[in-house]
């Protein structure tokens, strides 16, 4: 290898002007069993030294394929770059030989992947994996490589790095593994790091830690960063420039501030409006983008977004080109001029106050009461002494990070699990002690909607059978004709066409499947539904549709929801009251407004601060306090208050005694020693 890394050769002059990375007119195709899928079409972008560029889009928009194309890591079996150039420091990466490209990877460009749990080799120690690129690219001997690895681990904030070198990935938490991945990415001082959804698999407080670390390091070491994400809050907080992709093409690009405050493409506008946000009063209904993204094996002619666009005109039958917009950037829309001068799409309709949300909602009767429930899985304490109620017709949001026990609570209520201690009373029946016969009638009033629309429907049954099965089993709809009629009306109720009854789940999109799951739950005419992360797996534009549907159904049928989720903004939008769990314990329950505007428990405060909001100006002005450290092991939970090891207010009493979960304000319950029962907040 006589070739020197180009940044040693290039003069300083063109370094200032020429982009570090320039992608020109990139086209990528996949051969699949459904024909040729054009995953990226005509993508161009420039990344400058030290810049943070965000690529935003929903699944299937081509954003990850773009990243893998730059790395030339597309699956060689079925993917092909058909056109375009990828210029990195002036050289076209597509012209390089495999060996030259290999030498570049990890040295000049590194990549960080989405899944920290599976991205590290389970049988090699952390040290071996960090030292590998150092030894290959920099030719360090074992001793120097070790020293560098220790330095890197320290840089990404892993305590006791010397000792950790010999550990294996399974001994680290998700957040720690992602730190290791970042250390590997930084190992050879690259000039570009591509991060593909680097924090999507992580909890919100850990996400904030990782993103701050990445931003800080890239600024300090002058590394350009391409962040691929679907999370607009992250974009607003970290990106200088943004590329918005839709259906394999660029919809819009520009400076982050301009994109967020003056979006020029109807898709961008729709995307920004369909996300519930923590920094705005929740409106009555989310604005949504109707319909589904196109099938890329057979994309529509003309503008790809046209079928879902409210501003569609005849001209949209022709594909729009990217045109410059003021003050910066480009957008691919025929009606950019009209959008710019405000003729159309000026602003979202003003947020209306939620229908019937009077100043203080009256306290309705309790439908479900969870009483001091504890659940052990062998030695692991998943849920500890949790009490709360769900009132008839209301939505109680249940939030918490992984390991908080929120999903276990849902399963206990559904009696998919039996509690170790405590009782759960639903509509007057203690379901932990109810006979099977008694449960039959309880089950009819209590239903569930699951997170993953791909696995919550039996793949071997038709939609009609799935929705109609409970009707037949409980004899709710008389004869077959009546049952078919009822299935039809249920499907229509959730916004599906009746013909869908003949289809199988795999023939439906994720959003449609989730609607089927809702229809199945509705078939029993329940009074209460557990929504277990019911919208978490859906793309932003689909998520809004499902949230609206759930709200409509609640208004029609007066159903109560237990809405289990980790997305605080979504929970705020949909809930009447919110419950916060941490490490198996309930730390705070209160009305939505109280909890979001005046959180009392320190953990709730950290949680809310960790969420970035989709507004670059606000995000840059804000310096969130970050929760330090990792979640303690539920095998060995801390004594006293479970939050004390991470709590800045922790005092002696927090280490010793478990705080009582008590009502400190009207209808506002908190478990914290530092919160005085009336009127003042945190004492410390």
């Amino acid at each position, binding site marked *: 290898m006589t070739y020197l890394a180009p940044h040693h050769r290039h003069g300083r002059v063109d370094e200032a002007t020429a982009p570090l990375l320039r992608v020109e007119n990139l086209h990528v195709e996949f051969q699949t069993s459904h024909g040729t899928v054009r995953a990226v079409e005509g993508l161009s972008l420039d990344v400058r030294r030290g810049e943070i560029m965000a690529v935003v889009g929903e699944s299937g928009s081509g954003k990850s394929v773009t990243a893998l194309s730059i*790395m030339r890591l597309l699956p060689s079996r079925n993917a092909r770059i058909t056109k375009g150039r990828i210029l990195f420091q002036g050289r076209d990466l597509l012209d390089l030989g495999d060996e030259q490209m290999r030498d570049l*990877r*990890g040295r000049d460009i590194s990549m960080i992947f989405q899944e920290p749990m599976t*991205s590290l080799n389970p*049988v*090699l120690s952390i040290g071996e994996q960090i030292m*590998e690129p150092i030894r*290959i690219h920099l030719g360090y001997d074992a001793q120097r490589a070790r020293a560098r690895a220790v330095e890197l681990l320290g840089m990404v904030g892993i305590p006791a790095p010397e000792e950790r070198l010999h550990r294996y990935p399974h001994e680290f938490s998700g957040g720690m593994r992602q730190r290791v*991945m970042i250390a590997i990415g930084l190992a050879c001082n690259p000039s570009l790091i591509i991060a593909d959804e680097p924090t999507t698999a992580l909890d919100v407080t850990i996400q904030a830690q990782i993103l701050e670390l990445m931003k800080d390091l890239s600024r300090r070491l002058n590394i350009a960063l391409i962040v691929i994400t679907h999370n607009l809050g992250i974009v607003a907080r970290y990106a200088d420039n943004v590329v918005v992709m839709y259906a394999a093409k660029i919809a819009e690009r520009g400076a982050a501030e301009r994109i967020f405050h003056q979006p020029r493409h109807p898709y961008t506008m729709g995307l920004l409006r369909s996300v519930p946000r923590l920094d705005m009063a929740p409106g009555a209904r989310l604005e949504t983008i109707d319909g589904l993204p196109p099938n890329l094996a057979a994309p529509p002619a003309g503008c790809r977004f046209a079928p879902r666009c409210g501003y569609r005109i005849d001209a949209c039958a022709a594909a729009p080109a990217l045109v410059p917009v003021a003050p910066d950037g480009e957008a691919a829309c025929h009606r950019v001029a009209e959008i710019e001068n405000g003729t159309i799409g000026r602003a979202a309709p003003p947020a209306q106050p939620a229908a019937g949300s009077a100043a203080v909602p009256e306290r309705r009767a309790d439908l479900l009461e969870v009483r001091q429930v504890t659940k052990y899985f062998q030695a692991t304490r998943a849920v500890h002494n949790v009490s709360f109620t769900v009132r008839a017709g209301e939505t109680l949001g249940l939030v918490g990070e992984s390991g908080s026990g929120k999903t276990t609570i849902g399963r206990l209520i559904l009696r998919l699990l039996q509690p170790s201690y405590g009782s759960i009373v639903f509509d007057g029946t203690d379901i932990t002690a109810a006979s099977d016969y008694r449960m039959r009638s309880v089950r009819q009033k209590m239903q569930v909607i699951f997170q993953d629309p791909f696995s919550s429907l039996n793949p071997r049954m038709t939609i009609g059978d799935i929705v109609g099965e409970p009707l037949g089993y409980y004899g709710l709809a008389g004869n077959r004709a009546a049952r078919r009629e009822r299935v039809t009306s249920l499907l229509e109720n959730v916004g599906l066409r009746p013909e869908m009854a003949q289809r199988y789940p795999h023939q439906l999109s994720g959003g449609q499947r989730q609607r089927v799951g809702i229809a199945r739950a509705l078939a029993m005419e329940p009074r209460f539904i557990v929504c277990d992360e019911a919208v978490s797996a859906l793309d932003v534009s689909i998520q809004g549709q499902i949230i609206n549907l759930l709200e409509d159904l609640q208004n029609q049928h007066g159903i109560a929801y237990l809405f289990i989720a980790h997305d605080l903004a979504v929970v705020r939008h949909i809930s009447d009251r919110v419950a916060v769990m941490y490490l198996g314990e309930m730390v705070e329950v209160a009305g939505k407004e109280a909890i979001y505007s005046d959180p009392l428990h320190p953990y709730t405060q950290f949680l809310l601060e960790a969420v970035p909001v989709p507004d670059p100006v606000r995000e840059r002005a804000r310096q969130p306090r970050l929760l330090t450290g990792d979640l303690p092991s539920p095998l060995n939970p801390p004594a006293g208050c479970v939050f004390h090891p991470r709590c800045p207010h922790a005092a002696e009493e927090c280490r010793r005694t478990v705080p009582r979960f008590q009502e400190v304000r009207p209808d506002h319950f908190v478990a914290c020693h530092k919160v005085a029962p009336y009127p003042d907040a945190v004492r410390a």
Partner: protein
Amino acid sequence: MLSYIRKRLLMTIPTFFGVALLTFLMLRVMPGDVVEYKLRADGGALVSEETIQAEKRRLGLDKPLWAQFGDWAIGLATLDLGKSMWTDRPVVEEIGARIQLSLQVAVMAVVFGVAIAVPLGTLSALHRGTFIDQFIRVITITGIAMPPFWTGMLLLLSLLAVFQWLPPLSFTPIYKDPVANISQLMWPAMAIGYRLAALVTRVIRSSLLEVLNEDYIRTARAKGVYERVVIRRHALRNALLPAVTVVGVEFGLLVGGLVVTEQVFNLNGIGRLFVEAVARSDFMLIQGLVLTTAAFFIVVNLVVDVLYALLDPRIQLH
């Protein structure tokens, strides 16, 4: 580590006890009676009922079942498996005389099989869907499709056709004459090894394909690791783990599973002894053989589990 082995060892005790009980029970419902069979074969149909009863008493067959099991179990604890009901020699001695041969064939077969399987499996996975893969697939499916006695006969036939030579019939221990020993035993080892290689090749192929799809392989490539290092260090190291288990299980079953092959090659091993014992309803011997085979399997499995725990850091040793 020691505590892991101890725990694992404790877990095998109930299995072993179950195996012993099952063996005993299965054989006591056997219709053929060794005493009648033996005496009538010796002296025709003229043996008196009294003689039969006396012989039964001598063998302890007149006691109730639980007492017979008790006797046998007590014997087991002192490694005394009783006496063959046919030859009157201690079962341990009968088995001891034959096990060396079977064990050696099994070990040679495993070595032969693994030596072929690792490169074939790797090649097949790396060239998935190509001509190479299809060719290896045909070889391996053939290997699984050939009954061992047929492979053996084909081997013998080709030796005869090509060299006009057949391997020696009498067993020479390897420490006495390695050449004679190996020239006799390499053929049965190859016949079984081929089948084993076919099995293991397929395991390696599918597990390597799975591993190559893992995120950490993409990570390794993104680090700029040389492709051959990606395969050897990152992929194979993970992909060979399931193969360890398969090889262990197959080896554990092999010593007793040589029944048919020993017949073809006229080898005087455990398998041959087993067929003889079954033909004569010598259930003391059958019991001893079945138990030995199962015990061997259990011990091999234990060793494999410990080995696996050493190779895979994810297994908790405590």
